[in-house]
């Protein structure tokens, strides 16, 4: 059974998306919840089956897909990617709950697209063939486009949806080019990631591949100056969708999995570019938080800020840098995803996430306020939360390899924390004036459950990070060894 665990994980959501259309519309939501729970269970069992001491890539499955192009359906996980699977399943479940009562029209379409998006996102983390990866990568666009255009939060969301789609499609161009270039550079064209990792490339090809990947993934990460879609997107998208796209760090994962290991020499030579972009992104995100009056955009900026830190830490090309980056990204998936879900609860109650129309929200909604505080603190890397170990390792790695950039990063993180707390204070404390805030009701049991899971995870990993870091460590060491070649 465990031989096909990853395929099961990938096809469960697709199966669910098909079955939805065979049942009456009112059953769609319940079925989706069931499928997502099953997916979470499958993703958790990957965690159990995976042997951290074993070979690097496990649960490998390889089926010839397109023989003439030498494309395989090849999936597998290692310590770097494995933890993203349960995190993805969890964030999707949270997003479903956040939207629980909001989908009234065409529920079957909505939920089947959500499941399709889940399959594509899980696929991104499992794929070990560049074409398969690209397939999943582009497959995310269709559901996101329809979900955003059809169920967007604002009148302009149709435009934002098209913009997102086109920017991501354009971002896919350099990526596809890089993969084709990689394939053509081998004696027998191949898209097999494992084979590509084993075969060193000439330096000039490496430069091209690295730059193309940097642009392609940089759009998704997003790295400044390719970030322009994100603030608009965070405003226009329904909260649940923002949680998915901002919470799940596929762009940074792409850098770790593809860009750097496939072109190690070029990455080493261009370490200043990677570190510089990381620092720039970090500072930009931090300053961005200060300028925001909307909690959602503020959170999006905090996310930009931390991905910047992860990229900066990666530029050290050490095992602890990679380990730190993966654990920070994971923690962030859960924390930011959770925070966006909580903001969606808040928006449903008060009709807004802008601090000017909130104020004093903690009085009527103490649970929501404290939950958001915990997620937010995890978001700024408070010791005791799940983000701290990763952040600490990243800062150490950065200080060691790029001291100046590391100092700047510390400064930027302080600004980010200050910015977040200031936003938080204005939104949740002070006198409550608006009627919606005064009459708001605190979290309901269903919402409570999401919160408890999130806080348990954040606290447990924060206080006892050892086992989680141990899962990542061997793979991170292998990664660093591969890059250091």
């Amino acid at each position, binding site marked *: 059974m465990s031989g096909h665990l990853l395929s099961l994980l990938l096809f469960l959501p697709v199966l669910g998306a098909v079955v939805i259309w065979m049942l009456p519309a009112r059953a769609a939501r319940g079925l989706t919840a069931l499928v997502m729970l099953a997916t979470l269970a499958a993703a958790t069992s990957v965690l159990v089956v995976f042997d951290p001491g074993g070979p690097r890539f496990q649960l490998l499955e390889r089926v010839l897909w397109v023989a003439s192009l030498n494309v395989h359906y090849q999936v597998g996980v290692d310590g770097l990617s494995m933890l993203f699977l349960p995190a993805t399943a969890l964030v999707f479940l949270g997003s479903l709950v956040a939207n629980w009562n909001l989908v009234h*029209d065409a529920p079957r379409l909505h939920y089947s697209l959500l499941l399709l998006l889940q399959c594509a996102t899980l696929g991104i983390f499992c794929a070990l063939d560049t074409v398969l990866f690209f397939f999943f990568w582009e497959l995310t666009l*269709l559901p996101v486009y329809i979900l955003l255009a059809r169920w967007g939060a604002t009148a302009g969301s149709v435009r934002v949806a098209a913009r997102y789609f086109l920017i991501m499609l354009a971002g896919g161009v350099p990526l596809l080019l890089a993969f*084709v270039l990689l394939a053509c550079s081998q004696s027998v064209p191949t898209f097999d990631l494992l084979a590509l990792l084993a075969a060193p490339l000439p330096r000039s090809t490496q430069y091209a591949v690295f730059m193309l990947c940097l642009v392609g993934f940089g759009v998704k990460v997003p790295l400044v100056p390719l970030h322009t879609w994100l603030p608009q997107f965070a405003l226009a998208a329904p909260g649940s969708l923002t949680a998915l796209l901002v919470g799940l760090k596929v762009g940074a994962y792409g850098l770790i999995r593809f860009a750097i290991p496939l072109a190690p020499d070029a990455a080493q030579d261009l370490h200043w570019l990677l570190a510089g972009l990381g620092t720039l992104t970090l500072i930009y995100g931090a300053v961005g938080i200060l300028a925001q009056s909307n909690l959602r955009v503020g959170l999006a900026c905090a996310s930009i800020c931390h991905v910047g830190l992860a990229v900066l830490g990666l530029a050290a090309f050490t095992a602890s840098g990679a380990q730190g980056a993966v654990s920070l990204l994971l923690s962030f998936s859960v924390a930011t995803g959770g925070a966006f879900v909580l903001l969606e609860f808040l928006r449903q109650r008060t009709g807004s996430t802008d601090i000017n129309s909130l104020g004093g929200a903690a009085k009527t909604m103490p649970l929501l306020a404290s939950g958001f505080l915990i997620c937010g603190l995890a978001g700024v890397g408070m010791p005791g939360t799940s983000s701290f170990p990763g952040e600490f390792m990243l800062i150490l790695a950065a200080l060691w390899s790029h001291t100046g950039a590391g100092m700047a990063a510390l400064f930027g993180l302080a600004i980010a924390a200050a910015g977040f707390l200031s936003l938080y204070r204005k939104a949740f404390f002070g006198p409550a004036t608006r009627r919606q805030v005064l009459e708001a009701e605190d979290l309901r049991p269903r919402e409570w459950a999401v919160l408890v899971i999130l806080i348990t995870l954040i606290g447990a990993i924060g206080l006892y990070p050892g086992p989680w870091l141990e899962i990542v460590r061997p793979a991170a060491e292998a990664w660093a060894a591969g890059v250091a070649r």
Partner: protein
Amino acid sequence: MSGFSEILWFEQGGLPLLAILQLLPLGGAAIVFAFKERTTAVVAGKAFALAELLLCIVVSSRINPASATLQLAERFAPLGYHVVVDGLSIVFLLVAALLTVLMTFYGMSRGMISPGRLFAVLLVAEAGLVGMLVTLNVAWFALFSALELWAVTYLLRRWASSRAETQALARFVQYQAFGLALFVAGCLVLGWGHADARGGRWSFDLFELAGAMPADRFQTAAFYLLFYGLAVRTPLFPLHGWLPNMAQHGLIAVAPALMVGVKVGIYAMLRFVLPLTPAAVLYWQPYVIGFAMAGVFFTAALAFQQTNLRRLLAFAVVSHTSLLVIGVFSLHEAGIQGAVLLAANFGLAVTGMWFVVGFVFRRTGTTELDELSGLFERIPFLAIAFLIFGLAIVGMPGTPGFDAAHLILEASIDNFGALSTVAAALGNVAAAGFLLWAFQRAFLSQGKHGSPDVDRTTPMEYLVCGIALLAMLVIGFFTEPWLHLTEAASQSLAARFVQ
């Protein structure tokens, strides 16, 4: 040395399938025509279209795709009759047969006047298409081309949907007659060249022409005449002037689908132009590619200017056809293979979009983008079908365009370097831009008067769009058999250009 080889039909056993393939739609047309407007005419029309599709599937199962040899050949020397099929042409044949079947369903669901006559003409057009796709004789090709053009002209005249039809029709006839004249002139130059070399014996057969290619300037002249003759038909920027008018004013889905659903222009370039004028092709390759690149972007820019959904689709066709020409003229095995698959993909996708537009027109009586709004609420299936067809054109994963785009990119990296490849790929993004924009304006926008109260999707509409979607997704996920089918033929064609 012509470099061609063939296997005659009786050596492969069975029946002269290609002759049946050509006669079936012709006979069908006669029978349907004889039924006049009785309901049996409609049933017979559908039955013949389906039978032709089945026959195409039988043919595709009979040929051996691993060999580059032309297969199931039939010859009748006195008339110059010479037909074959190989891995490339079978793809086009299947698309032509499938589209005809879909058009018969579509014609019923739109509730056209005198469907019996419509089906008869449709079958004549199919016969023309099939004839063009199997013949190896350029004169026969021109003849079948004329037959198909006559059928389309008749369709446009009898079932036009608006008053500007006369102008559109006149433009169509002028352009096509001109294109055909160029092509015929090209054939004459080739035949003359052959006569010159072989002591006054004229021939228009590919095998013989390839053995006596005209020299230097005559080859260039032949290349230009053939290429531009086909470019009108394809249509290729800047010779596309007939299409937008016809698309806007003509019979909505059927006529454009017949003209651009099956890319016979691209097919004829592969079958005749590349092997018969290799030196000229090599010499003019950069110019053709340059024009095609310009065409991708120029027509994409024009598409953004359109206010009518049907015109917009016409420009989308011109834009992506330019991409096909880039694939063909890469003269690279992967590029040719990619172009063939992409041609099938585009044909299916664009026809699907045209069907949806036709269904929308039946409900709203207009295809002006300003007057359409909020259709998504009432006909979500058709809206999503439109979106998926649109994304298929852009090469969304899960459609044949995905792997085909890989192939064309691979070829153009090999031949022209990264820069022009990026340009071509960005042309795709531009196409995504205007297709999404059209989708939003027609299906998602909120109109002044709220959402219109149009009919829900009918079963026939589910069927037509469902079949097209299914065909596309199946080919998209299981590309391997199609790649296998086209591989050997593409290789042997590309091998002609390896110095």
